């Protein structure tokens, strides 16, 4: 077993990993930037090491600082959380070279999935459905317009090295493509250090549905059910639920099999997520991308399956088998996650500031994974996620009703939050009906 671990992350996910590590008797070390010294995760670790100033490039993305903290504290392993260095193949390799256990898939698997064009091509070869798109990077506007004419408008412009919905633009015509192409390249370079662009057929009425996988130590890959992530603003998720109200048992079986095949294709080990688009009209599903790390919304899968996914990550990284019997996994009931962001609930603009009051709801089926508490400063340096309010019920109706009560009981003063948006979402006919797609937020905010 792994006896000690450094969590190379911050906020709610650092706290989440620390909780399971401590329960398993693993000594856990936190790292923090100057901006985060007062956050709860720092004191909940057995030890905490400052790794630099607030900007991520000088702290959480600084490989030398993170590995230095691992060396001085003598830990045996590194858990990367999500974001930051979690999907850096170079970092994973550096961790392994330093003689530490990397809690994640192999650097080769990260690399294969990290390049979205390569990932698409690999999946297509493996028989996983992909949307019509480019098979190599699009070099310039002329190539882009030629490819788009072949694929058919509307198309999505994406960063090949990107992910998580950042730097994507949908264009409906050649004029829009010409206008947006250079901006997309500049952004890709800025956010991901690589200007490569891919074009993909844009599905207008689609649900965003992902499958949780676990690659076991013996190389078999388990698919643990899906999560519907269609409630998005600016291609970023706001709320998720499982099971997806838009997925039939027959479609689920095919998606889970495709996700397991995707993982097996790259020899995947540990927890990962295969994201798909489901065409709301035709019910076809298409591979979008794979996230080679623990996912933000993993708690709702934990709630319906009773499996601690972070525990499985530790076990698999240590070469052990999972803690449950795969054949006896059953999803029970329905779970919803509402992301509480420090942003105004109308326009979703960032709202950093000092938290003067913080009261979390509790009750049957309610779980709050929070990164902050009263007295903490929310700074502009990191993403706006304050907490994840997760609710489980025996049925979708019960889960939504419990969620309404829980949202009403969550009080945050200081930064503006999107809690009022969640009230509206939970009361909207479209969300309640279950028949929604990725434009549901746009329709609530015309």
């Amino acid at each position, binding site marked *: 077993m792994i006896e000690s671990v450094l969590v190379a992350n911050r906020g709610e996910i650092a706290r989440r990993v620390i909780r399971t590590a401590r329960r398993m008797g693993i000594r856990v070390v936190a790292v923090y930037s100057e901006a985060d010294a007062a956050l709860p995760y720092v004191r909940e670790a057995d030890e905490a090491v400052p790794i630099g100033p607030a900007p991520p490039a000088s702290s959480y993305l600084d490989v030398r600082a993170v590995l230095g903290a691992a060396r001085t504290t003598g830990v045996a392993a590194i858990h990367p959380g999500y974001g930051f260095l979690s999907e850096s193949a170079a970092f994973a390799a550096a961790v392994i070279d330093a003689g530490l256990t990397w809690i994640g898939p192999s650097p080769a698997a990260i690399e294969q999935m990290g390049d979205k064009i390569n990932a698409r091509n690999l999946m297509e070869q493996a028989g996983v459905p992909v949307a019509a798109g480019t098979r190599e990077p699009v070099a310039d506007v002329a190539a882009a317009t030629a490819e788009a004419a072949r694929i058919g408008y509307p198309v999505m412009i994406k960063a090949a090295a990107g992910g998580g919905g950042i730097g994507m633009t949908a264009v409906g015509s050649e004029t829009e493509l010409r206008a947006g192409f250079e901006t997309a390249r500049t952004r890709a370079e800025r956010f991901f250090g690589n200007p490569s662009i891919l074009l993909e057929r844009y599905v207008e009425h689609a649900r965003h549905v992902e499958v949780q996988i676990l690659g076991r130590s013996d190389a078999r890959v388990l698919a643990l059910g899906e999560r519907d992530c269609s409630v998005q603003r600016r291609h970023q998720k706001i709320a998720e639920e499982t099971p997806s109200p838009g997925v039939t048992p027959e479609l689920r079986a095919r998606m889970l099999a495709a996700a397991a095949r995707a993982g097996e294709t790259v020899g995947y080990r540990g927890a990962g997520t295969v994201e798909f688009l489901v065409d709301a009209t035709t019910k076809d599903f298409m591979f979008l991308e794979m996230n080679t790390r623990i996912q933000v919304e993993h708690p709702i899968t934990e709630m319906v399956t009773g499996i601690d996914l972070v525990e499985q990550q530790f076990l698999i990284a240590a070469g052990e088998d999972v803690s449950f019997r795969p054949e006896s996994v059953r999803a029970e009931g329905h779970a919803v996650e509402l992301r509480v962001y420090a942003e105004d609930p109308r326009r979703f*603009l*960032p709202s*950093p500031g000092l938290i003067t009051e913080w009261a979390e709801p509790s009750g049957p089926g309610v779980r709050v994974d929070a990164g902050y508490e009263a007295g903490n400063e929310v*700074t*502009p*340096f*990191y*993403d706006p996620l304050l907490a994840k309010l997760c609710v489980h019920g025996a049925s979708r109706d019960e889960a939504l009703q419990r969620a309404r009560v829980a949202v009403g009981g969550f009080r945050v003063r200081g930064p503006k939050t999107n809690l009022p948006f969640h009230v509206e979402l939970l009361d909207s006919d479209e969300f309640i009906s279950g028949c929604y797609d990725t434009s549901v937020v746009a329709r609530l905010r015309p």
Partner: protein
Amino acid sequence: MTEVRAEMVANVWQVVASEGDQVADGDTLVILESMKMEIPVLAESAGTLTKVAVAEGDVVQEGDLIAVIE
């Protein structure tokens, strides 16, 4: 005269317009960045940009002056 002010704490990522430019209502003047999001600051009226009060890399607080249009 219209003063354009920051709506939130943010870093100044790009200064798009320059002093002396003729701007139309809705033109992007500056792009801020906060919480991993780009926030374009737009001209609220048409006119001449007589002052750009920020430079790339600056940190602005809520209410800080960004530009003046006359």
